């Protein structure tokens, strides 16, 4: 960026957003129907959605903190804060969301070779390739490291066999980044690799999983003798667990940010007061006050950890705390939304019930609350066992 002074940057950014963000994209929506996920088969919901993406791509604003050479805008932490501030001020939708942005990008930036970065990051930034994540398996949920999907070295290629579960949008993704077992004899954490697989490869198939909220954002994904080129391992072979741990930390922060941002954003009282019944019931009112207090404080904690990270004070395993507190809070908040909504909220005709049910997965995906507490207990507190 030319303008490095924060206020100068803010001014330029604000002007650009005002000039370029289509009116239809200024409704702040972030629901399934309005998100732009991108990908080879992406159907834009509107011309405005396409225009907004294209304009942001030219500025690197789909991935504002990534280096310019990989399609980003190279913003520093302070600029990033300003970017989100200004987006919020305009109530602008984010132009693009994807697991490529959230997960694979950070992994490649940290562990990838220069060739991998050059090859895979810009299409993510441009919304041209959509990625999904293949971690969990039917027998490996909380105990992720016990995964069994085999990846055998066949000389000029890898051969992958096995099954993944909870792969978000695998049926719509172009590529998958997956954890696979490349050494069956090593201790369980030491024989895992992080590989990239084209979903168009022969032998890859998916089956959607219907959730209690009625939607199917997740799939089972099957690998039946899938051939994978040798250069598609990220990081070292058999050191995929390092990549996974790095990304799990990242994922936890992301999931908790969803809850934390809610707290820092629209007051719970305002959300609940939308309901016809308001907050006259003393029990509901007291619960809402508590949730608001905790939500604000969790939101501040997210800010504090980011500030600490920027100051070089690593948060480390504290991401487990953010994940745990953020997701548990989010569940409380949506319980309150349902309670305030009364019988109005009991249908499928608005998004309260699906959102409420969706939050129940927050404390399971990306490491359960129980796993988070065990991590804190052992790594932060140093308790035995």
């Amino acid at each position, binding site marked *: 960026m030319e303008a490095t002074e924060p206020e100068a940057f803010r001014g330029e950014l604000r002007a650009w957003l005002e000039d370029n963000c289509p009116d239809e994209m200024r409704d702040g929506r972030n629901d399934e129907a309005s998100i732009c996920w991108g990908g080879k088969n992406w159907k834009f919901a509107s011309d405005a959605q396409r225009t907004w993406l294209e304009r942001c791509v030219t500025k690197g604003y789909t991935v504002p903190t990534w280096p310019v050479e990989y399609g980003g805008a190279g913003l520093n932490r302070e600029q990033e804060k300003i970017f989100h501030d200004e987006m919020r001020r305009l109530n602008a939708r984010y132009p693009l969301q994807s697991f490529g942005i959230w997960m694979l990008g950070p992994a490649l930036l940290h562990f990838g070779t220069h060739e991998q970065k050059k090859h895979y990051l810009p299409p993510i930034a441009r919304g041209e390739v959509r990625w999904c994540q293949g971690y*969990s398996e039917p027998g490996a949920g909380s105990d992720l490291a016990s995964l069994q999907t085999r990846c055998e070295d066949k000389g000029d290629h890898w051969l992958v066999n096995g099954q993944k579960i909870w792969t978000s949008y695998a049926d719509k993704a172009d590529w998958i980044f997956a954890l696979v077992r490349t050494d069956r004899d090593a201790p369980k954490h030491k024989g895992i690799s992080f590989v990239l697989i084209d979903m168009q490869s022969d032998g890859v198939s998916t089956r959607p999983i219907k959730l209690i909220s009625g939607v199917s954002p997740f799939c089972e994904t099957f690998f039946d003798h899938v051939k994978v080129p040798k250069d598609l391992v990220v990081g070292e072979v058999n050191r995929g667990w390092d990549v996974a741990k790095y990304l799990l930390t990242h994922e936890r922060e992301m999931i908790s940010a969803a809850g934390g941002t809610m707290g820092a954003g629209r007051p719970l009282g305002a959300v609940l007061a939308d309901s016809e019944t308001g907050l006259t019931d003393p029990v509901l009112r007291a619960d809402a006050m508590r949730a608001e207090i905790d939500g604000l404080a969790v939101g501040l904690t997210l800010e504090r950890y980011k500030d600490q990270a920027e100051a070089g004070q690593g948060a480390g395993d504290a991401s487990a705390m953010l994940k745990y507190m953020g997701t548990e809070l989010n569940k409380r908040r949506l319980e309150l939304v349902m309670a305030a909504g*009364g019988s109005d909220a009991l249908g*499928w005709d608005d998004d309260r019930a699906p959102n409420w049910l969706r939050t*129940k*997965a927050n404390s399971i995906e990306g490491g359960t609350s129980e796993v988070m507490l065990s991590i804190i207990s052992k790594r932060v507190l140093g308790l035995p066992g």
Partner: protein
Amino acid sequence: MAKLVRTDEEALLAEAARGFLDGAAPVSRLRNMRDSGETADPGLWKAMVEMGWAGILVPEAAGGSDMGHAAACVLAGEMGKTLASSPFISTAVIAATALRQVSDRRATEALGRIAAGQATYALAVDEGAKFDPANTRMEARADGNGFRLNGEKRFVVDGGNADRLLVLARTGNGLTLFDIPSGREGVSRERRATIDSRDTADIRFDEVVATGEDVLGQVDDAMTVLKPALEAGQAALAAEMAGLAAGAFGMTVEYLKERKQFGVPIGAFQALQHRAAHLWCECEVTASAIMHAGRMLDDDPGNASLAVSLAKARATDTAQRAVQEGVQMHGGIGMTDAFDMGFYMKRARVAAEWLGDYGYHANIVAQARGF
């Protein structure tokens, strides 16, 4: 106070109900109903009628078994365990109790039809998003010797399929309860897809004619008839929720014993053990409140409000804990539609709202206890 222990009769009833429901109404029956796009299961209700359940609160002279509210709670509890879907509470508990408050021939005949499975009922009380009968605004305007009903009722549970409606409306000097056929001219029903996959409707009343014959009890005095009926329904619903909690908890404990992670059954992890044990304690405590409510309704119905609200508040709290812990302890599988826990969670949410939520009943308890 009567003893808080099941009578032999109640124990036999529970056993028979469990046997029947395990065969006739496992959760898969509700799932099938939903998957086929239905909101009611007339076949299951017919079988329940044949079991005599429709008449459990109907006097023997009218063809019922007259076993009392504690027994009705036993049945509702067993239904809750596997989420059996039926108009039992609306018809056999609420409507039957309302009709029993009136000792005329017409009411007796109506009770007979309930016991015989010839009529199902729904209670049309709610107008806003929360249960609040005292603030009913829908009007039944005096018109000649009768009334004209105009307005809308919301969240009428079982209202999409019921043969008859109990409708609460404002008359000259108070509230009046009407008992009218759902097919009467001017009644229009809109079925709502509630998350528990069961029958709910919003019902409009447009210049619906009602005569004095359609009034249940006295004009301007709905509560003499409705209050006992509401309390009976609240107690039975609390019992259903306690059963639901027990059902969800049972599934969870089984899963804790089966599912292995890190090489051992997850039920060997003490943190989960203690949470499961705590939940069991909550279920036990709620069971006491349910039994007490049933006993009070049978023995001293004029003073049962505290007991009933205590039961509904506790059951609401316990059921929600049970399904929340149930989903969390099941992990990812608990979130899938293919697994039954989601049905429990959704039914618990709807039942939490119906006939008064936690806060509503907590306020009644607080008032009854002087604060």
